[in-house]
């Protein structure tokens, strides 16, 4: 049974069960990837996966059921299971199946070129030899990867909404392992987008540099430091704490920003934007996961908290219009909220300017264990970190085996300078990602020796 046939059957069962408000959500992904070890292909994977979610409103509640098995029996089963589930829900949030009538943004889409399996293998093998060429300390265990990924999602509902979107991209990455004879160090560099724009030598160079830079690291004395967070690290902190900007978290009493709209929550230098069509994003979104139109907006403007991110239900509860941020973590998940390209706006100055301004301090380039050491509900973080010393306004020797700690909202207030080097964290095929320039913050507690 293909999706069109399955959809017809679901519509038939929905009507047999007298459902007036329902939606069918379809998502499909195809991925081909190759992995190199030593000088050979170690692994080759080709995955074709799909999933379908049905939801319907019964007695004012939205029941969900999903499947990956497109059979007549399952078409009937997801309708019945969704009805059953709706009947046991007690949510106070209003339920919606989105109506037609939104004006959707548009953008120009480039045609995707699908690389052949042989091409992927060749690219990855070349990248692998580039990695070994970079430095004599590169050892076996070093690996390179190349892949192609495409996805499609479709929303069809009882109000006649019928939307389809798709995206595709290539990715390459190198994972270098180097040894100084005593210890091993690893580094990684990922490039995603259009393969034609990738430079193997550059990926190899950056991956090996990432590993080698940390050789000879030391710890620092525990204490308070002026810190420059690299763009990558600041973006991943933002990502970890992005749920504080969700109206759903706020309405459930799980956000520190509850009731703070209109207040100064960050330094004046901070403007935070959510842009579903950010021009360099590999995946853009013109409609959200309940079919509502998306739009760019500032969430923080010159330090002032302007709006939560909303879906239809939270917007109705707050008496505002949806911001088009309805989001399903996977096709089977109930609708929640998420950002798109979500970034702190660049201001001015290079990284060197920030070091100059810091004088003496620590440049943090890696943080680990976000899921454990950073808590979005309390805002607290205490994270294993690494980076470099900043001495007399210049980047100095590597630092490892330290932790940084603080509170995310306090950190937003304490940012004294924002650089111009905006960078987004590379995430797999997703419209949802965070970005930031490097930032300077005073008074961060560091634990070391």
């Amino acid at each position: 049974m293909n999706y069109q046939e399955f959809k017809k059957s679901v519509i038939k069962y929905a009507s047999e069960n007298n459902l007036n408000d329902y939606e069918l959500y379809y998502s499909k992904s195809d991925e081909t990837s190759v992995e190199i070890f030593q000088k050979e292909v170690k692994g080759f994977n080709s995955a074709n996966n799909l999933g379908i979610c049905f939801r319907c409103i019964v007695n004012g509640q939205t029941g969900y059921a999903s499947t990956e098995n497109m059979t007549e029996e399952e078409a009937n089963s997801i309708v019945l299971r969704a009805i059953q589930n709706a009947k046991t829900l007690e949510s106070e949030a209003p339920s919606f199946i989105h109506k037609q009538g939104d004006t959707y943004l548009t953008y120009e889409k480039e045609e995707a070129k699908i690389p052949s399996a042989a091409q992927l293998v060749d690219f990855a093998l070349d990248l692998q030899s580039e990695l070994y060429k970079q430095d004599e300390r590169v050892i076996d265990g070093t690996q390179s990867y190349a892949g192609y990924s495409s996805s499609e999602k479709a929303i069809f509902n009882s109000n006649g909404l019928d939307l389809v979107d798709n995206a595709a991209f290539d990715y390459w990455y190198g994972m270098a392992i180097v040894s100084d004879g005593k210890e091993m160090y690893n580094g990684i560099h990922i490039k995603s987008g259009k393969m034609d724009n990738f430079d193997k030598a550059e990926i190899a160079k950056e991956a090996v540099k990432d590993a080698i830079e940390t050789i000879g690291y030391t710890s620092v004395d525990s204490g308070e430091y002026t810190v420059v967070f690299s763009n990558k690290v600041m973006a991943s902190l933002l990502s970890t704490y992005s749920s504080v900007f969700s109206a759903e978290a706020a309405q459930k009493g799980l956000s520190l920003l509850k009731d703070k709209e209109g207040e100064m929550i960050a330094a004046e230098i901070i403007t935070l934007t959510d842009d579903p069509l950010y021009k360099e994003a590999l995946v853009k979104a013109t409609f959200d996961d309940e079919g509502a139109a998306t739009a760019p907006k500032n969430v923080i403007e010159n330090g002032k908290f302007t709006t939560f991110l909303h879906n239809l239900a939270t917007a109705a509860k707050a008496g505002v219009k949806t911001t088009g941020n309805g989001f399903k973590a996977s096709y089977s998940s109930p609708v929640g909220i998420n950002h798109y390209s979500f970034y702190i706006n660049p201001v001015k100055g290079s990284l060197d300017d920030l070091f100059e301004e810091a004088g003496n301090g620590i440049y943090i380039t890696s943080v680990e264990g976000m899921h454990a050491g950073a808590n979005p509900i309390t805002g607290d973080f205490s994270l294993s970190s690494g980076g470099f010393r900043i001495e007399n306004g210049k980047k100095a020797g590597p630092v490892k085996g330290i932790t940084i700690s603080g509170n995310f909202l306090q950190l937003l207030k304490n940012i004294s300078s924002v650089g111009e080097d905006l960078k987004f964290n590379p995430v797999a095929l997703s419209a949802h990602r965070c970005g930031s320039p490097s930032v300077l913050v005073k008074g961060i507690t560091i634990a070391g020796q």
Partner: protein
Amino acid sequence: MLLSQNLINEALWKASSTGADYAEIYAEYTKSKTISMVSSKVDKIADGVISGVGIRIFKGTRCISGSASSLSGEAVLSCAQKVADALLGTREMETIVLRERRFGDIHPIHIVPSSVENTVKIDLLREACESARNYHSDISQVTGSFLDVDHNILIATTEGLLAEDRQIRTRMAVSAVASKNGENQTGSCSPGGRMGLEFFELHNPKEIGEEAARQAMVMINAGYIPAGKMPVAIGNGFGGVIFHEACGHALEASSVALGQSVFTGKLGKQIANEKVTALDDGTIPNGWGSINIDDEGTPSQRNVLIENGILKTYMIDKLNGRRMGMASTGNCRRQSYMFEPTSRMTNTFIAEGTDKNEDIIASIEYGLYAKSMGGGSVNPVTGDFNFAVNEGYIVRNGKVCEAVRGATLIGKGAEILMDIDMVGQNLERAQGMCGASSGSIPTDVGQPMIRVSSITVGGR
């Protein structure tokens, strides 16, 4: 059976047509349900079926794999063809003879959760959430979830193996938020087992809720720990996450076989303090991380990883086993058919030692008692690990004193294993979800109380 024997034969024959020396079919049909509660009201229910097939072929140490979200004959054969097409040789295997094997089920299930209506689960969850809410007036919010999974798998290989397993799991998770003076702190409790609803005869929902609330209340009234290096006593149960992160991942063949682990080439050598004996045991009846067979069809085993400080074995899957010249230890696992399987942990824990818990605390002049741990992560190449302390106390002059927040423990796996210098006697296991390349899988961590002589504690 998830697939007919004719289809299995045909697919294996096709998959091995281009020179593979091993082909394997993994078919899955999984039902899962998650009921979420906010403010004692059922907020969301996710109810899904995951089904599809994953096919792998090996040629030496090279692996080609594919997956498809369907169990139809057409989809399975097309997946087999696609995998075969990536290898450009000619058939080596003459015949394939399948022999069905039944390994039995050492994890009896009394009440299969997927056959029980929502209301029964909702009542259990509500009891837990309400007991958390009623624990103290400073508890400002409680969220909870009830998860059950009915995971059916079939594995067939050109070695002739044909086996099935049904893995049923139940888990309840409660998270409580305490608020005071504009600050929030959280506490959580989330026990689970390879069991049905009878799990709640052993684990009272009321106690689950109270434990989450108790922890949030301790933390809202706690100050921040001053950062520094100090001795740490780590409590039993989830404290075992230290071994899981600091050592477990680096003993998985997926990193050992490629020389990406600090423990590569260390078999028979001392890698831990002689007080440390550690195991990975997938055969514990009804254990959260237990399996009858792994995802390559190898029966699960009780593996002694470290005995009195000496490295005895790694956790090995078939593919990495080829590279290492060692047999599988029954540790090959995958989240679902979509993920390529590899060596993973099951129930991993430090065995009981000879020290008394009170002696461990009494031995610390100034340090931390990490009563309850959060999650963590590790870089297996460097051994750098980190994990969070959910509930911690300062120890002064051998006595447990005030509660402290914000502690994170960091270090290097190889070093911390040598620094575990006291091991207590109250072994307990706790449940977690472990994420790695082959997806998110249920694993138990565990240990009795232990002492680490010196570790960097992040705080402020």
